[in-house]
Each structure stands twice: as C-alpha cells, then as structure tokens.
C-alpha cells in the first residue's frame, strides 16, 4: 500500500534546495557551454529568473488553494476534464523525458567514478527497485529522509563548489556577452527543458496540511538552489574556459579540483557519492509526480493500479535507453526540437493561469458548499416540520381525538 504523502512546506523547501541543483549539474553547464559558450552562466541566470516568476505564480496558487484540491481537480473543474487530462499527459511526458535523461547521466557518473564499464540493466534495476520502494513508503517518508540527509548533501555540494573556487580563472568568463544579449536570448529556448523543476510543487497541492501557510520559504529555497546552480556554472566555466564544451559530466569534473595536492587521494569521490543522493531523491520525486499524472489520466484510484502505473514508469525508463540513444533523442526532439513548445504549456502557460483557476475553483467550491448548506438547512427544516407534525398527531391520538 502506498504510504502517506503529506508534506510540510518546510520539507518542500528542503526538497527544492536538494533537487534543483541535484541532476541539473550533471550535464547542463556543458550542454549550455556547447551552445552559448562562456556566456552560459548569464543564460542560466535568465532562465532561473523566468522560473522564479513561475514559482511565484505557483506559490500564489498554492496559497489560494484553501480547499487543498489537486492540480488535476482544479483544471478539471475550471476548464474541462479533457483539458486536464491533456495537461497531465504533457506533464507525464515532460517528467519521463527528464527522468530518462537523469538516469542516463547517473550511470555516466557512476561509470566515471566507480566502475569503468557499467551494465545499464545491472545499474538501473536496483535504482528502479529503490525508487518503487521509496514511493511505496510515501512521500512523507521521502521528505523525512531528505531532512535527515540535507546537511550532508549540502556540505558535499558546497565543498565541491567552494574548494574549487581558488583554481578558477575569472578571466575565462570574459568577454562578457561578446555577441550581445541577443545572442544569448536567441539560444535560451533550447535549454528550457532543463528548468521548471518547481512544477513538481503542483503535484503536492493536495498534500500540504491545511494549517500550513508560510509559502514564502519556498521562494527562499528556490533562491538558494538557483544561487548554487549559477555558482557552479560560473565555477565550471572559470575552471575550463574554452575547453568547457568538451567534457561530459560537469560535477565529476569540478569536484576534481577540491584537492590541490594530488597526492592526497580522491576525496572528490566521497563528495560525489554523497551528492549523488540528491539525484536519487530527484528521481524519486519526478517518478512520483509522473505516476500521479498517469493516475489522473487513466482515473486510477486503487492501490494496485497505482503500483502498476509506477512500475510502468520505471519500465519505460529502463527500456528506453536500450532502444534508442536517449541523449540524442532528448536533444533533437525536446531540447532543440518541437517538443519544447509542447512542454511550455506546463512550464510557462499553466503557472500564470493557475491562481485564476484556483480562484474559480474556490468560488465553485464555495457555491457548492452554500448549496449543500442550504439543502441541509431545508432538509433540517423539513425534518423538523415532519417531526412537529408527527408529535402533534401523536398528542391528538393520546388525547383520543381523531
């Protein structure tokens, strides 16, 4: 049976701090360096600024969501069930693409750090089992786990960032915006796929306890994680300069610089292992959200049905890299290709609309509540009236009157 999914806002904040840099730093700085060059940290900054606007809309919507309706219920009741299912379908595809990409890069980091040749199935099946197990314990348990590991992961991440700074050459970031801001802006749409992690908050709209109100800390959490990501991007370009585009995994490359004395062994591997836990948490969160999207699309409500949809998600992720080159597919179809426009519906169209939709849902809910209240009072009156009549009748019978 899938466990409790209630998550406090503070826990959500910690999860945001963990999952945004977790995974984003596997390959994104390299992918962006290939397209944008040394100006990629500025592109990163702009995309995070856009994400911040979307997050503010989401936070506003969550704050308005007093009836704790799920995002599916909100869209379904205000637009239509068909539109809700289409949006859930886009969400499911978005999350599947991100998940596949995460998994493929996770094996790369595992191979480059621990085992030179790693079998995909042997790597992914234990990960998939761990994900299924963690989701089966419920998101409350995952959030508690994130709370416990938070300090360790952040220390590892900041160690890799801060200890690498002395070796960076800030001159590698210059000339600043050599081709003008236009050059960066034109390339931006090709990298939106890697952003929008805050969308997962929507899937917890009905999981936040009703007494929770401090939504502002989610924005603070986002700010911290964005600062870490931008910082890492700057450090990466500072370390590798014009050679930045030729690497494969940014984090494993940056972490090498935490030890200046090469005779001290590989402390970076230890840091990398601890940091990798954040990638696993991200995979769990995305898998859970993907499972919920599929459940909404197929109207799955039973426990066994939820397990089947979760296993289906895992099977897709396991099998897809065996059939095609996921990195190429994601790059051609969803990063630079048409797919990104489809995802923009969820990433950049839905969040600004959401507060409005929540308001409408609230009004409907209020109206429904009023109707129910009126009906109840009428019923009560009727019941009370009937009871009075029956009492009168009983009195007359007792008195022997007809």
């Amino acid at each position, binding site marked *: 049976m899938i466990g409790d999914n209630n998550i406090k806002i503070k826990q959500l904040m910690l999860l945001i701090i963990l999952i945004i840099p977790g995974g984003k730093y596997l390959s994104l700085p390299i992918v962006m360096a290939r397209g944008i060059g040394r100006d990629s940290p500025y592109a990163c900054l702009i995309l995070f600024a856009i994400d911040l606007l979307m997050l503010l809309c989401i936070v506003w919507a969550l704050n308005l969501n007093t009836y704790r309706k799920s995002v599916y219920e909100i869209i379904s009741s205000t637009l239509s069930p068909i539109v809700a299912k289409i949006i859930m379908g886009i969400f499911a595809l978005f999350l599947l693409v991100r998940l596949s990409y995460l998994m493929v890069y996770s094996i790369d980091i595992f191979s480059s750090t621990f*085992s030179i040749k*790693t079998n995909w199935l042997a790597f992914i099946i234990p990960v998939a089992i761990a994900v299924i197990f963690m989701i089966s314990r419920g998101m409350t348990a995952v959030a508690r786990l994130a709370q416990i590991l938070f300090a360790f992961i952040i220390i590892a991440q900041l160690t890799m960032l801060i200890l690498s700074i002395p070796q960076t050459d800030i001159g590698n970031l210059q*000339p600043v915006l050599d081709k003008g801001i236009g050059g960066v802006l034109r390339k931006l749409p090709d990298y939106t796929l890697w952003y929008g992690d805050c969308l997962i908050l929507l899937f917890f709209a009905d999981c936040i306890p009703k007494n929770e109100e401090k939504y502002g800390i989610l924005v603070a959490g986002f700010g911290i994680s964005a600062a870490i990501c931008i910082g890492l991007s700057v450090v990466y370009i500072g370390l590798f*300069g*014009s*050679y930045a585009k030729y690497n*494969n995994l940014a984090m494993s490359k940056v972490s090498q610089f935490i030890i200046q004395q*090469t005779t001290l*062994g590989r402390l970076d591997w230890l840091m990398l292992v601890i940091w990798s836990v954040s990638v696993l948490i991200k995979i769990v969160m995305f898998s859970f959200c993907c499972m919920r999207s599929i459940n909404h699309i197929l109207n799955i409500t039973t426990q066994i049905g939820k397990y089947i949809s979760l296993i289906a998600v895992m099977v897709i992720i396991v099998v897809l890299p065996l059939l095609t080159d996921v990195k190429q597919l994601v790059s051609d179809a969803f990063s630079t290709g048409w797919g990104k426009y489809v995802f923009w519906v969820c990433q950049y169209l839905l969040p600004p609309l959401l507060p409005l939709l929540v308001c409408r849902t609230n009004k409907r809910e209020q109206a429904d509540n009023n109707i129910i209240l009126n009906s109840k009072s009428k019923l009560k009156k009727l019941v009370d009236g009937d009871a009075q009549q029956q009492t009168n009748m009983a009195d007359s019978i007792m008195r022997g009157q007809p």
Partner: protein
Amino acid sequence: MSALKRIGIILIVGTVLALISSSFLVVPISKRAIIVGMGIDYVDNQYVVMCEVLSAESSSDTPGTSTTIVISGVGETITDALEDIHVKTGQLPSLGQCCVVLLGESIYKYQQMNLPLSLFTHSVAFKDNTVIACFDGNACQAISATTAVTPSPSFALSQLIQGSQQRTSIPKSTLIKFISKQHDNPSMSGYLSVVTFTPDQQINDDKTKHTQGYFDCKSIAVFTDYMYAGTVSGDEYHGFGLVTDKTFHSYIVNDEQGGSVFPPKASVGIFTKRLNKDVEWQGQSITFTIKCNLRIDRTNTDETGKLFKFINKSTLPIDNSVLVNTRDRVTEQINKTYQFSQQLKCDYLEISNMLYQKYGSEWLDYVINHPNSVFEDVTLDVQVEVTR
C-alpha cells in the same frame, strides 16, 4: 508476510545480485596497476611509458605500508603502451590516482603536445588538475630514480611543483590549464615546468638498482599552438612567475644602510602580492600595463618566498634602499620576461587573451589581419610598488 511474498522477494534479490555480479567490471585491487606517476618518451617511432605504480605488497621495512614499483610498456600510441603494461604484467593500468606526468625531451620539444596529451584529456578517470611537466632528458629514467628525502619520484615531483608553490618561484602547470590556454584562445600559448634531475649516487640493494639524486625545477617550457617555442629560465623565469602565478620568490638585494650592524645585503620575502594587469588598444598602439604591489619584509629563519601570515613586525629596520633595490629587481625581471616573449614570438604573458577579454570579437577581427601586433605594437608599462 506470506510465504509466497518471501519467495518473490528472494527471487528478485537473487536476480538482481546475479545481474550485478556478472555485469560489472570487477577488478580486484591486486590486479590493478594503480599509477601514481608516469614518464613518457618517444624512441624509435614508439612511445615508451614508464609508470610508478602502487604495489599491493607491504614494505618489508614498515609492515602495513605500501611500496611503489616501476613498470614499463611500449607502443605506437600511449594507449598501446599502457595496454602493453596490461599484457606484460596482467595488471590493469588505473589512471585515477596519477599525480604527475613527465614528458621527455623527445616529446615536448618535437611533437605537437595535444596529441600525446589527448589520452589524458579524454579520460574520465584522469584528473584534469594533474601536474604535467617536461623533463630535460629521458623521462622514463627520471621516473625510475629516487630522491633521498622522498623515495617515490612521483610524490617528490608533485611536492616540488605543487606543494612548494607559494614558497618558491615554480609556477603550477596542470593538464587543463595547459590545454585550455591554447584552445580557442587568441594567445594560443601555454607553459609547462621543466624538471631536471641531478644524480647523487647509485643505489644497489638486494631488490633494485637505481639512481638516487634530486629534482629541481628552474625553468619552464613555453608552447605556441601546442608546439615547443622555447625555454624560459633565469630572470625571465622569475619575472614570469611574478606576473602569472601565485608564486612568491625571495630576493637578496643591496642594503646600503646595512653597514656595520647588518650585512650589506638584505634577504627579503613577500608578504602579499597584488597584481593588476591591464591592456589598452587604440588603433595600432597597444599598451600593456602591469601594476605590481609587493609588501615585503626581511626573511627570518625557516622562511622562503611567501612570508608567514600574522607574524608581528620585525624590529629589524628595512631601509628605503632595500625597497628601491627590490623594486628595481622586480621591474627588471618583468621587463626581461616580456622581452623574451617578444624574442620567442610566443605570447606566454597572454596579452592577446587579455585584449580579447576586454575588446571581444573586435580584437579577434583585428588580430587576423595583424597576427604580429602583440609582438610589435605593444608598449610595456611596469609599475612596481614595494612597501613594508
């Protein structure tokens, strides 16, 4: 839990374990040649690689500690040579712990350096901040030698080039620094430390026969577009360290007021070095300004190069002549290194890079038509300020 569930769990766990055990490349530590340093030479159209590897056997003198042994391989490429080591010894070469790569004269003087180094730049296990150095002579012989202080030549070299960085004038040169400085950068120049070995005595013990001596590093080899351009040594070398890296050099200068109390020479070290380099480009005129602020003091015992921080000021006076003489010495060294770069036509002071960083594509367009402008049109302005 029902019996059926238990059987199911055991089956799943068993399957996963079977997959894992048969699918990972598991190499026992005793079958791995963990390379800590390597020397590479090019002899008779073949690469000769001599690797210092950690031995799984404990040292007989100090049980529980590991020793190093030297193994070699030959091949048409460095990869082939490493494969040769695998074939000959049955041990899989592992590059993840390598802390120094020494390139012999036959390679660094005559080959385009990006080719032999490409194996390391493409390797995911090899650290990008590994020290790469040139060896004046046969690198393989150097890797099989020992020093009196540190028996392992790799660790001795790593200590020499990296560990003593702020106490000496040796600039640090790592793989990624060397490669990235010459890749897509208008200066297209990089440098590597040049190591020499001076033999002291021949050691003949029961197990090995090797030379003991000491390494030193008093020059750098500079490269243009990965090809050797020349060797920078002496004052030019110290000047390069002053304006390029976080190196700190001690100076012995005339102390005119020393007289009877102090010797007529004063030995000074550097507390802090503040460097500000700027370029100005107008038409065909380029001005390269180097502002160097040094805070110096007399060196005490156990001090070289960079002086220890948070030390109370010495009561020993520093006369103005010491400050002036130090300033003149530093200015002379910077001027010399600049002049030598003009002479070599190798922009190892990265003037072109600085111009690109400041003026962007405009400079790139200009430099295509005026490739020698950084050697012909530059006016150097050195402003050294020495304080106590």
